[in-house]
C-alpha cells in the first residue's frame, strides 16, 4: 500500500473497466467548463458505465485525467458489491481512490464493511481506518467487529488490529489482532468455541484459534478442556505448496487427569510431487493407546475404529509403466499388535495392459517384492510376478470374446520359523464372452424425448489348476491361490433417458440399472459325495443389484443375494439404501444391511428445514440381532438467523451420552459439527 498517494479509491473491482466503457450521466444540472475540460453534475446524479452505477448529490468528472470526485450520499454498485460513503475521490485509470465515511458490501459473502475512510490498495484489497465489519444486514447488526484499522481482501481475509467484538452494541471481546475469513472457499478452519457435557469426558469446552499463516497455509489450534480426561491441545496445519503439494498435519495431545497417563495422536495426509516426476503420498495415522478413539472419538466410525493405518508411498509413471514403493504399517486397536502383518516395504513394478502393435493382443505385467514383518511370528520376503496376455476376438462384430492367460511366479525367503527358500508357479486362464443389445424408444414427451434400453450379457469361464501350496508360507491371499473351475454369467440392464434442455446439449440420465449375476462351480458339480446326506451346491447365490434414480437427488439401491440351493432357499445378503433430497433442505436417507449370521443393521437420517429458521437433523443407528437395539441416536439442531447460528447436538450411544452447544457467525465453520470434530481428527 502506498499510503502517501492521495488518489486511492474503493472502486469495487469492475469500476476500473470504466476506462473503455461509454459513460451515461443523468442529473438535474450539468455544467461543462471547456477551459478545465471538466463536467460538473449536480442534483440526484446517476452515472452508469458498463456494469457500474455511481450515484451522488454532486459529481465532478475530468475525462482527460479520468479524475472523479463525488460528494453527498455517494454510492457505487457493481456485480461484486455495493459501496456507499460521504465523499469519494476516484481516478478511473489507476482505479485508486479514497472514500470518506464509507460502507462496502461484498455481495457474494454478504460481507458489510464500514469505516471512517476506505482506501483501495489494489484490485482486491481495501484498507479502512476505524473500520468495522459484519455479515448481518441492516443498520443494527446482531454482531459486528470494530478495529482501529482493517485490511479486507475480497477473496481472502479481514485482518485488523485492536479489534472489539460487539453483540448488538455491547462490547464482548477485545483482541489485539483479528483474522476473519471473507471468502468461505478455502477450507477455513476458523471455528467458534463450543461447550457441553459427556458422560465419558465430563464437562467439555473447546476453544479454537485460527492462524492464516500465508495465502497457501493456515492452521487451527484447539484447547479442549475435558473435566474427566484432562486438557487437550490440538493443532491442524494445512498447506498447499507449489508443484501441487497438498496436505494437512493434525496433532493432538492430552495429559491425563486423576492419574490417567497422557495420550497423543497424529495424522498426516499428503499428496505431492518430488523432483524428477516422482510422486509422494502419505496417509499416516498414529495413536498412543488403543482406547484413544473410544474416549475421543465422537462420530460412529471414529469412536469404534478398529485399526489405524500408515501408508507412505513414492511412485513414478512412465507412460504405461509404474514403479511404486510403499511402506504400510497397521496398528490393530482391538488386540495386541505383535501379530499384525506389516509391509516394510513393498516395491511394485507394473506394466499396465497395452496393445502389441495393431494385433488384437494385449500384454500386462505385475511384479511385487514385499518384505512381510511382524513383531512376533513369521517374517519373510516374497517376490512375485505375473505376466498376462489377452486377445480380443469379435466374430461377426456381434460377440466379444476376450481370453486371457497369466502365469504367477512366486519366490519366498523366510525367517527361521519359516520354510526358508520356496517357490511356486501357477497358471490362470480366463475367458470372457459378452455382447450388448440396444434399443431406443422414441417418446413424445417434450422433456424426455428418447429412452434407450441396453442389455449386456456377460459369460466368463475361469480356470486355475489345483496346485499344492502348503509348502509356501502364508502371508496373504496371494500365497494360497485357490483352484478355480467356474462359470460366471451376468445380465446388465440399463435404461437411459435423453433429456432435452433448451439451448444446450441434451443430458443423458441413467434412471435404472439392474444387474443379475451368478456363478456355477464346475468343480463342485463333479465333487463325489462322501455321504448320501451331503448334496452338491454348484450354483452360487443369485446376486441382483438394482439402482433406481428417478430424479437427480433421489436414489434407491438394492443389492441382494438369493441362495437357490434347497436347504437354504433364502437371502444370504440383503442391502437397501434409499436417499431423497428435495433441494430445499429436506432429506431422508435409510440404509438397511443384512448378511446371514453376521450383519443385521439399519441406519436412518432425516434432515428437516420445514421449521425454518430451526433446521433439524436426526440420525438413528439400530442393530436388529439379539442383544442389539439402538446403537446411537443423534439430534442436531441449528437455529439459523440471517448472520449467525446456534447449534445444539445431543448424542446418545451405548457407552456415552453427550450434548454440545456451539454458535457460529455466518461464514465460519462450526466446531460442533465440523466434518471431523476436534478430538477425533486423529
Amino acid at each position, binding site marked *: 500500500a502506498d499510503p502517501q498517494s492521495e488518489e486511492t479509491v474503493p472502486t469495487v473491482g469492475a469500476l476500473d473497466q470504466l476506462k473503455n466503457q461509454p459513460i451515461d450521466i443523468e442529473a438535474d444540472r450539468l455544467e461543462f467548463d471547456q477551459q478545465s475540460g471538466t463536467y460538473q453534475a449536480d442534483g440526484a446524479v446517476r452515472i452508469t458505465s458498463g456494469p457500474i452505477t455511481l450515484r451522488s448529490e454532486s459529481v465532478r468528472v475530468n475525462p482527460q485525467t479520468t479524475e472523479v470526485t463525488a460528494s453527498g450520499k455517494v454510492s457505487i454498485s457493481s456485480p461484486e458489491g455495493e459501496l456507499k460513503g460521504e465523499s469519494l475521490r476516484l481516478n478511473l485509470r489507476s482505479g485508486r481512490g479514497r472514500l470518506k465515511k464509507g460502507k462496502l458490501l461484498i455481495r457474494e459473502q454478504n460481507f458489510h464493511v464500514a469505516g471512517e475512510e476506505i482506501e483501495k490498495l489494489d484490485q482486491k484489497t481495501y484498507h479502512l481506518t476505524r473500520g468495522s465489519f459484519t455479515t448481518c444486514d441492516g443498520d443494527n447488526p446482531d454482531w459486528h467487529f470494530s478495529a482501529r484499522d482493517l485490511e479486507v481482501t475480497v477473496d481472502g481475509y479481514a485482518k485488523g488490529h485492536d479489534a472489539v467484538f460487539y453483540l448488538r452494541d455491547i462490547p464482548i471481546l477485545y483482541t489485539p489482532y483479528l483474522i476473519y475469513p471473507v471468502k468461505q472457499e478455502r477450507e477455513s478452519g476458523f471455528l467458534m468455541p463450543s461447550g457441553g457435557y459427556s458422560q465419558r469426558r465430563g464437562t467439555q469446552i473447546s476453544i479454537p484459534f485460527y492462524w492464516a499463516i500465508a495465502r497457501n497455509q493456515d492452521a487451527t489450534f484447539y484447547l479442549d478442556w475435558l473435566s474427566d480426561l484432562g486438557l487437550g491441545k490440538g493443532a491442524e496445519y494445512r498447506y498447499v505448496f507449489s508443484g501441487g503439494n497438498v496436505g494437512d498435519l493434525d496433532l493432538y495431545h492430552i495429559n491425563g487427569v486423576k492419574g490417567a497417563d497422557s495420550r497423543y495422536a497424529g495424522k498426516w495426509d499428503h*499428496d505431492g510431487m518430488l523432483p524428477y516426476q516422482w510422486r509422494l*503420498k502419505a496417509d499416516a495415522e498414529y495413536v498412543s493407546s488403543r482406547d484413544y478413539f473410544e474416549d475421543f472419538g465422537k462420530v460412529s466410525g471414529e469412536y469404534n475404529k478398529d485399526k489405524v493405518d500408515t501408508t507412505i508411498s513414492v511412485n513414478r509413471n512412465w507412460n504405461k509403466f509404474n514403479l511404486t514403493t510403499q511402506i504400510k504399517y497397521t496398528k490393530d486397536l482391538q488386540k495386541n499388535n505383535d501379530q499384525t502383518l506389516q509391509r516394510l516395504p513393498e516395491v*511394485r513394478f507394473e506394466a499396465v495392459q497395452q496393445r502389441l502393435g495393431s494385433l488384437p493382443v494385449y500384454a500386462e505385467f505385475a511384479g511385487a517384492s514385499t518384505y512381510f514383518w511382524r513383531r512376533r511370528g513369521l517374517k519373510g520376503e516374497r517376490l512375485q510376478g505375473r505376466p498376462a496376455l489377452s486377445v480380443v476376438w469379435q466374430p461377426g462384430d456381434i460377440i466379444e470374446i476376450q481370453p486371457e492367460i497369466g502365469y504367477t511366479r512366486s519366490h519366498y525367503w523366510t525367517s527361521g520359523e519359516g520354510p526358508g527358500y520356496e517357490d511356486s508357479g501357477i497358471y490362470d486362464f480366463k475367458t470372457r464372452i459378452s455382447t450388448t443389445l*440396444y434399443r431406443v424408444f422414441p417418446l413424445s414427451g417434450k422433456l424426455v424425448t428418447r429412452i434407450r434400453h441396453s442389455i449386456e450379457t456377460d459369460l466368463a469361464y475361469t480356470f486355475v489348476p489345483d496346485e499344492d501350496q502348503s509348502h509356501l508360507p502364508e502371508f496373504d491371499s496371494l500365497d494360497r491361490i485357490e483352484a478355480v473351475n467356474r462359470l460366471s454369467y451376468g445380465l446388465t440392464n440399463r435404461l437411459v433417458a435423453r433429456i432435452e434442455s433448451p439451448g444446450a446439449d441434451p443430458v443423458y440420465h441413467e434412471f435404472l440399472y439392474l444387474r443379475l449375476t451368478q456363478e456355477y462351480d464346475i468343480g463342485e458339480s463333479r465333487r463325489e459325495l462322501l455321504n448320501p446326506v451331503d448334496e452338491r451346491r454348484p450354483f452360487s447365490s443369485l446376486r441382483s443389484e438394482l439402482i433406481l434414480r428417478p430424479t437427480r437427488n433421489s436414489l434407491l439401491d438394492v443389492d441382494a443375494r438369493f441362495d437357490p440351493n434347497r436347504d437354504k432357499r433364502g437371502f444370504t445378503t440383503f442391502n437397501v439404501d434409499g436417499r431423497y433430497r428435495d433441494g430445499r433442505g429436506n432429506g431422508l436417507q435409510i440404509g438397511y444391511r443384512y448378511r446371514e449370521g*453376521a450383519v443385521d*443393521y439399519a441406519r436412518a437420517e432425516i434432515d428437516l428445514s420445514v421449521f425454518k429458521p430451526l433446521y433439524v437433523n436426526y440420525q438413528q443407528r439400530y442393530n436388529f440381532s439379539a442383544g442389539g437395539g439402538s*446403537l446411537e441416536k443423534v439430534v442436531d439442531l441449528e437455529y439459523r438467523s440471517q448472520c449467525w447460528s446456534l447449534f445444539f447436538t445431543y448424542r446418545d450411544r451405548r457407552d456415552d451420552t453427550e450434548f454440545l452447544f456451539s454458535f457460529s457467525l455466518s461464514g465460519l465453520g462450526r466446531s460442533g459439527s465440523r466434518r471431523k470434530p476436534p478430538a477425533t481428527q486423529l
Partner: protein
Amino acid sequence: CGYRFRGQGNSLPGGVHSVYIEMFVNRTTEPFLENRLTNAVTRRFARKREVEVAAHRSGAEAVLSGEITVYETEPISYDRNDKVTEYRSIMTVTVVLSRLDSGKTLWKGTLSWSEEYLADADKAIQDDRELAAEVQISDRLSDEILSHLLENF
C-alpha cells in the same frame, strides 16, 4: 423386435473410433489404484466392438485420460456392540475424452462406485478383502465409463 447389436448413434462422442488410454492420475493418498483402474478400463474398452484401443498415442483419434479424485473406506455396518462389521470403499474418478489433434474435449464426466467388504479380526485378511473390493470397483467403474461414453443416441 427392434433390439440391435449396433445401436444407432452408439459410438464414442465425436464419432471417433480409435482411443489411446492414458495412465490414470491418482490424486488420493492410497497407492496402486491407478494401475488397477487403467488395466480395467483398457480391458473393458478392448473388448468393446465400437472402440479400437490404440497401441500408441500417435495412432489414435482420441485420448482417454482421467484422475482418481476420491478413495475412501468407511465403516458401513456395526454389530450389537457397535463394533464395525462391514466397510464400504468408494472411488470417484473424473474422466475426459479429448480429440488428439485439437485437444478439444469430446466428453467429460465424474463417476463413482462403491463396494462393501467384511471386517475381520485379522487385519491382513481385512486388507485382502479391501483389495478385492478395489478390483471390483475398478471393473465396475470401467463399465460405467464405457456405458456413459456411449450415451449419444
